[in-house]
């Protein structure tokens, strides 16, 4: 039942990413991901694409997962939907959706939930829709997998939703093929398809990355409106800090398959504490501020997941690594638990705040 577990106002709590004491078997959050691990055995070695991610998300809230390529953010979202094939991926940990655990559930059960209670919007709406079927047929199919209704009823529902997501003349466009839609309209159709079953959880994986900025604004606006109307929980996967700042209530920053920092959007942008988060902010040119003379990039390149650096995966690129004898090279920092702010860094919290206030913030 909708809203059955809407008990927590603090929608975003932190958990330890390394295996340890679990919380009780009855999670209170609507989506509760605990110590999710997704590893791919390959010829070159074990790729630990996701290596212990935990977070919670309530209905009506938006969590942004931010990271660069290879950080594991997309793998995480596919893992929640159960879309990794068991012969290729080793998936561990727990994913609780409204009190039901999905990792240990039968594939058939996860399939029933997929598309119905949890749906996904993908990055490139052109390649994400089947070129040989009409937009309407694809939405009708998504509805009829989970509802025993006639084609006519499903078609009416498809037309309704296309209109709802802002497609003009939906009764006519429902019979168009994806290639007859513009990029923005395709993404709207994709959203209509995801929403056709009123999902409680909507996962959006880089939903605007392939779109132009004015279209991006339209789509973000649409997602925001629809979330208000349907009350879904939204998991927004993106590399774009601007997009998360626009949409997310809470943010989780991933690096090398692990979470390095998490907290509310305000916290992450106003007082970030992880050197990687500082680097991301320093790297980003801004339209809303006076021009800086130079950007402050992060040195080096993102790590290879096959051969992740020891200890803190960020240490080879971190200007503060090893200072005062902290064990950056040898020990994986755990995600220190704060009430609303988790940081996986060996630098002492007070020192992190001092560095940010004195060295980082003035230069941003």
């Amino acid at each position, binding site marked *: 039942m909708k809203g059955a577990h809407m008990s927590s106002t603090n929608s975003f709590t932190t958990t330890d990413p390394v295996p340890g004491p679990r919380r009780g078997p009855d999670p209170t959050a609507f989506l509760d991901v605990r110590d999710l691990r997704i590893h791919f055995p390959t010829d070159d070695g074990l790729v630990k694409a996701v290596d212990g991610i935990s977070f919670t998300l309530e209905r009506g809230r938006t969590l942004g997962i931010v990271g660069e390529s290879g950080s594991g953010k997309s793998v995480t979202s596919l893992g929640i939907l159960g879309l990794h094939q068991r012969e290729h991926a080793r998936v561990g940990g727990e994913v609780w959706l409204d009190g039901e655990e999905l990792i240990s559930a039968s594939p058939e059960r996860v399939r029933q939930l997929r598309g119905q209670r949890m749906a996904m919007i993908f990055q490139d709406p052109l390649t994400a829709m089947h070129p040989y079927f009409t937009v309407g047929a694809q939405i009708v199919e998504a509805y009829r997998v989970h509802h025993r209704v006639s084609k006519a009823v499903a078609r009416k529902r498809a037309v309704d939703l296309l209109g709802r997501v802002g497609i003009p003349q939906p009764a006519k466009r429902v019979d168009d093929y994806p290639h007859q839609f513009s990029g923005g*309209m395709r993404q709207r159709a994709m959203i209509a398809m995801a929403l056709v079953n009123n999902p409680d959880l909507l996962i959006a994986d880089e939903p605007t990355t392939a779109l132009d*900025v*004015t279209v*991006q604004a339209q789509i973000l606006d649409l997602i925001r409106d629809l979330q208000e109307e349907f009350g879904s929980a939204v998991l927004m996967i993106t590399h774009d800090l601007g997009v998360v700042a626009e949409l997310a209530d809470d943010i989780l920053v991933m690096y090398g398959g692990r979470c390095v920092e998490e907290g509310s959007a305000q916290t992450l942008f*106003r007082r970030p504490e992880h050197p990687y988060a500082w680097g991301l*902010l320093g790297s980003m*040119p801004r*339209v809303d501020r006076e021009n800086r003379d130079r950007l402050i*990039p992060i040195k080096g390149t*993102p790590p290879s997941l096959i051969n992740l650096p020891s200890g803190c995966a960020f240490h080879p690129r971190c200007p503060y690594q090893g200072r005062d004898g902290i064990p950056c090279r040898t020990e994986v920092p755990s995600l220190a638990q704060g009430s609303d702010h988790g940081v996986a860094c060996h630098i002492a919290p007070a020192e992190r705040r001092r560095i940010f206030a004195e060295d980082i913030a003035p230069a941003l």
Partner: protein
Amino acid sequence: MSTTTSTERAAARPATDDLLQVTGLEKHFPITRGAFIRRTVGAVRAVDGIDFTVRSGETLGLVGESGCGKSTTGRLISRLLEPTGGKVVFEGRDISHLSNREMRPLRREVQMIFQDPYSSLNPRHTVGTIVGAPFRVQDIPTSQGVKRAVQDLLKLVGLNPEHYNRYPHEFSGGQRQRIGIARALALRPKLIVADEPVSALDVSIQAQVVNLLGDLQRELNLTYVFIAHDLSVVKHISDRVAVMYLGKIVEVAPRDALYATPMHPYTLALLSAVPVPDPDRRDRAQRERILLTGDVPSPIDPPSGCRFRTRCWKARELCEREVPPLRELATGHVVACHFPVEEAERTPGGRAAAQQAAASVPPATTTPV
């Protein structure tokens, strides 16, 4: 208010500080049908009559959304494409229709950097071969041999000169873009046309390359035409910015003027659409955001008069009838609009009114080309 067009101004100004002058530039790609008898049934008017100048030592940002013709413009001014109409004048010389052979000495002066560092480097060649190719092709004598010259270039763009014998696949995306930059710099060009040079890169790497481009400009006195869709990057790197929409330039202005006081309604909408990486300003940004309805019309059959009028909340009958000329409305700030944005429209109240008006423009639906 001055009503001189930029073309007139460009003609009147002494050519000394203008490295590149573009007047009435057009590129129409014909659409053909038929298997045996090919006939032209129309044309994609990718670039349809644009004027601008690039001054020596500056960075001109060229922004616009997909299909606006910015990349085609880049290829026209570096003469990878031949214009259908208009003129490209480089250092006082009309290069619009030079043959490949005639262009060869000029290729040293104008170089391009491309978006995709993966596909623009030959995977079978070593970095040394790739970066050294311009010397060999152009037969340029190097004082201490090609290898030394290449290693100097690698050092210049921040790569390890000892990696001379490595292949592109051994480098990361950011490093490959550095290789592309080194290749472009080999012949000490005056003008570099960079087409989306950082948009395929991760944020942290993007910043490295942007800084590198800035440093190189200062060190080597380069002139850039920087083509990008990312308005934040363009703001950071440009001295002046030109905004394109559907094959036309709608506004050109010094960077700060453009971002602070956009005068073309399209520029206003475009800038307001950029997501602001500041959750505290989220609500304000949304209140002031002008969401355009519908899609960009087809460049095969663009609207009459002003091309933006089908989505513009300020459009009137005149806009349908007459193509607005580029007029200089403030120093160096030229705008092609019959009813430019006024000061009152930039206030929060004015923005809100514009937002409502823009949202009520009926979307003209078009099928993409």
